[in-house]
């Protein structure tokens, strides 16, 4: 069923069989499901897709979506139609650090385009591409609600604001040396606040 549902992408049954949330992630998912009335567990889909994305390498493969469908006892197509609607879900593999530069009005007024050009040059990639080492992807984003601190970029759960060229250079160096980033649903991140 799933292979048809997810269109031309090949559905790998063997890969699907290996997918499993970590215990912490599964506990988090069950807590989220408990927030909704009996029988309305589908409501937990958006938050659980964030968890799946963090658990399964930063993107949602057909197998990952199938797994989420099983957890929520819904059809895989219901997961796919949601995952393909919202911009935060990646339907293809991304770099470890996805740099998303806001490009809407206030950020543009404050030089967002030049920030994008600067990153393109520094990482030697274009918007929509990933560096060869798989470390960085560059995306442009629509208004991220940081207009008073423009220009800005988001990487995982972190907002980097009032950007200058120097600041962008430092952000890239920091991520490179840490080799890991705080993702949208990195469960450890919850405890660092």
């Amino acid at each position, binding site marked *: 069923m799933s292979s048809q549902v997810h269109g031309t992408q090949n559905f790998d049954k063997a890969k699907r069989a290996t997918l499993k949330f970590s215990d912490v992630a599964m506990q988090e998912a069950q807590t989220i499901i408990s927030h909704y009335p009996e029988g309305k567990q589908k409501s937990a889909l958006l938050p659980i897709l964030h968890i799946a994305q963090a658990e399964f390498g930063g993107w949602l493969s057909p197998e990952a979506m199938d797994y989420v469908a099983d957890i929520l006892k819904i059809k895989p197509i*219901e997961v796919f139609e949601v995952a393909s609607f919202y911009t935060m879900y990646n339907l293809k593999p991304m770099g470890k650090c996805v740099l998303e530069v806001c490009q809407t009005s206030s950020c543009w007024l404050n030089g967002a385009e030049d920030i994008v050009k600067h990153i393109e040059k520094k990482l030697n990639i274009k918007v929509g591409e990933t560096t060869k080492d798989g470390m960085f992807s560059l995306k442009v984003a629509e208004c991220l609600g940081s207009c008073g601190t423009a220009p800005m970029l988001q990487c995982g759960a972190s907002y980097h604001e009032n950007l200058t060229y120097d600041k962008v250079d430092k952000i890239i160096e920091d991520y490179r040396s840490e080799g890991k980033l705080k993702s949208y*649903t990195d469960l450890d991140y919850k405890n660092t606040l």
Partner: protein
Amino acid sequence: MGKKLLIHNDKVPGIATLEVYRAHGGYASVEKALKTMTPDQVTDEVKKSGLRGRGGAGFPTGLKWSFLAKPEGVNRYLVCNADESEPGTFKDRYLMEVIPHALIEGMITSSYALGAKTSYIYIRGEYFYVARIVEKALAEAYAAGWLGQNILGTGFSHDCYVQVGGGAYICGEETALLESLEGKRGNPRIKPPFPAVAGVWGCPTVVNNVETIAAVVPIVNEGGEAYAKIGIGKSTGTKLISASGHINKPGVYEIELGLPVEEFIYSEEYCGGIRNGKKMKAVVAGGSSVPILPTELILKTAKGEPRLMTYESLADGGFVTGTMLGSGGFIVMDEDTSIVKNLFTFTRFYHHESCGQCSPCREGTGWMEKILKKFLNGTANESDVDLLWDIQSKIEGKTICPLGEAAAWPVAAAIRHFKQEFLDVARSKKFVDVSHYNKLYKVNA
């Protein structure tokens, strides 16, 4: 110095914690409402206050609450719209990040008025770290007994949960938000039925903006009449304004409604004037979807009266010479700004965010973006200005939700007030961006 009701404590160290928030009078509205008032009395105070929805539409909150259907044995819900995505708007983020308990307190008091046993705070997915701050505050509130079973021994029980979205502007539209809360694509619903009758899971639901819910706290504490004394006419109380663009002091400001626009832009207390000693060219006063106004019309109405920060004064002159207060996303542009290019960023945004249900919006936003791109790459003709006008006029009023209007209005206003600039770009067959961003070279401390 204007009166502040929402973020008066924003500089107090530790105000994000329950302990400090409580020490500064936090949760008094819950005590007052649950112990000394009936739910209807709370709603009456909100009606008396004249509070209007702070998300952008400006609909009277008390009236919205009174529409809530209350059939026996059916759950009712309060849903907080924290999907703040209107370009130029970042006030809800500030409020939730700095004083999360103000929102939670408002959620409890409002839920009591509505008879809602459960409420949800739907936060846009990109505000992930803000969601964590609110969740942490919720946990504190549960531990202290402000949430959960039998709050303050009054018999009122309430649960409040956070849901994060997935990145979609359209989910700020209340029925799209409810679809998203149900785990579906954010496609707005056809109304009626309105959420007050059939909202989340078909149950009666009230959807309110973060700032609206936070404003219920001072209204209950000090009374609706006291709140209504602030402001002018039907614009009562205070409003959070997100100020951005070419100003000296961008940020979130709480103003008393009725403040002159000129004072807001130029006084040191607020925006502090235009950056780099430049002149102001235009302002988008209420988030990207409201009509842009040139300097002379934002400072004074067409009748020559000073423009005030109120729903009515900003709308004076209709869309011909006026605009809207909207969400309070106040974007200021200096003399070097290209209106054509700024409009392009807005139109690209709406094209990206159109949910695709209605053809006029789905196709129209794409066409408008394409035509504006022609201006930027020097291939536009003068007739493209008329074409742009024609397309926007065919979107308004022809879509299920107001995203169509939100996409059409900025185009109409930019052409209405800056047509010559579009014609100049088309005639010169060349787009020169003269904006300068010397800020980028400065090392921020």
